[in-house]
């Protein structure tokens, strides 16, 4: 009987002491967190992708409150999230230019010209280190799908050795842009649907040898639609700030058909 009593007392005391300790500690070590952080976290998509430049959604929320980030900073959330965030932060509503990833290479498995057979590790990063994986073009897509592996939104699939972006799923987080060892993928405005499907900065003659669909920097597009297209460094480029210009003349006249619309 006495043992039972001591057992109950000791265990009860222990429980009481621990509870008191925890209560004291939680008061003493309380962290004052801005209540807006929790509300912002509810609005944010919670993908923790880091596309905004902050280390995850929580970091973005605290930086937004500190004024280091704009309410339009979350590329994944887009216009919808930006609206809600600007209401919460009491800022003027800003429009988000929705972006999307674009693959700037058009040479699929059948069109690629190979100088050698590559038999190494099947990643673009590895193939790029070993003489460009046997590919004649030093700028073109290697086709091992490093971009597909990093995409957190399952928005890239490989079709005939070339990545294809799912326009509905892509959130422009930019992971594929950094993953591609050749820098083929870049972000373009969602509504400006024209892409130069080539990244080659070789001279026109060299590009023609390496690829049937490469940009040979002939400048026909720049003559057809001079507002948008310009050729520099042996490659045509699009000025994506000029919206609403009809580019169909340039697309039709391109001799190697490397200007595509999707």
């Amino acid at each position, binding site marked *: 009987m006495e*043992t039972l009593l*001591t057992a109950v007392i*000791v*265990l009860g005391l*222990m429980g009481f002491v*621990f509870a008191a300790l*925890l209560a004291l*500690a939680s008061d003493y070590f*309380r962290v004052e967190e801005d209540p807006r952080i929790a509300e912002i976290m509810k609005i944010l998509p919670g993908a923790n992708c880091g596309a905004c430049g902050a280390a995850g959604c929580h970091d973005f929320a605290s930086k937004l409150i500190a004024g280091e980030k704009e309410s339009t900073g979350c590329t994944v959330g887009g216009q919808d999230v930006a609206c809600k965030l600007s209401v919460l932060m009491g800022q003027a509503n800003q429009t988000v230019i929705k972006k999307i990833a674009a693959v700037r290479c058009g040479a699929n498995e059948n069109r690629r010209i190979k100088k050698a057979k590559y038999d190494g590790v099947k990643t673009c990063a590895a193939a790029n280190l070993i003489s460009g994986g046997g590919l004649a073009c030093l700028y073109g897509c290697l086709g091992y799908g490093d971009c597909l592996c990093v995409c957190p939104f399952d928005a890239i699939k490989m079709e005939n050795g070339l990545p294809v972006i799912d326009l509905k799923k892509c959130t422009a987080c930019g992971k594929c842009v950094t993953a591609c060892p050749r820098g083929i993928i870049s972000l373009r405005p969602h509504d400006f649907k024209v892409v130069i499907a080539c990244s080659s900065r070789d001279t026109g003659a060299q590009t023609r040898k390496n690829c049937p669909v490469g940009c040979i920097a002939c400048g026909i597009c720049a003559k057809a639609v001079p507002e948008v297209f310009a050729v520099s460094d042996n490659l045509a480029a699009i000025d994506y700030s000029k919206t609403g210009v009809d580019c169909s003349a340039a697309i039709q006249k391109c001799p190697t058909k490397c200007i595509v619309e999707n």
Partner: protein
Amino acid sequence: MSGLELFGIFFSALLINNILLIRFLALCSFFGVSTGIENSIGMSSAVIFVMTISSAISWGLYNFVLVPFQLEFLRTASFILVIAALVQLEEIYLKKMIPNLYRSMGIYLPLITTNCAILAVAFLAIDYRYSFIASMAYSVGVSAGYSLAIILFAYIRERMALAPIPKWFQGYPIAFVTAALMSLAFLGFTGMFGL
């Protein structure tokens, strides 16, 4: 107790009686958290942290409270109480004082409350009648052994993610086979230095 004996306790806990691969304790976290190296490093740092402190406190509690009152039979209940309260306390403390460590440990710290290895170390240190210093060496050894095993296993699993594995072996089946092979390899330490 000499330094050599302490080293023997540490080494035995680290390799010869490795908590995961020889004693088969804490296997849930071994398979659950070892999918990536970063996760396993986070988990093992949390285990080292909690195991060392909780075994120190439970040793003190057993020898200064339970033994004098002849309440040794209460050790299961009281140790669970100690560990649960301690993990809570550490979480509160870290959140305030070292927020970076708190964020890097993340979910693993509260997960440890239910990690059986922590309780096992507190029990075993008492069963072996270790002194305080020896039980410290033991718990550091066990937690280092836990980290060693889970980080090695995470490296292997990351490699296996890229390997061509038949579909019926993918995921847990191949992980179990690998863990068994690792366990066999660790059996090779048995009898080292006569421990």
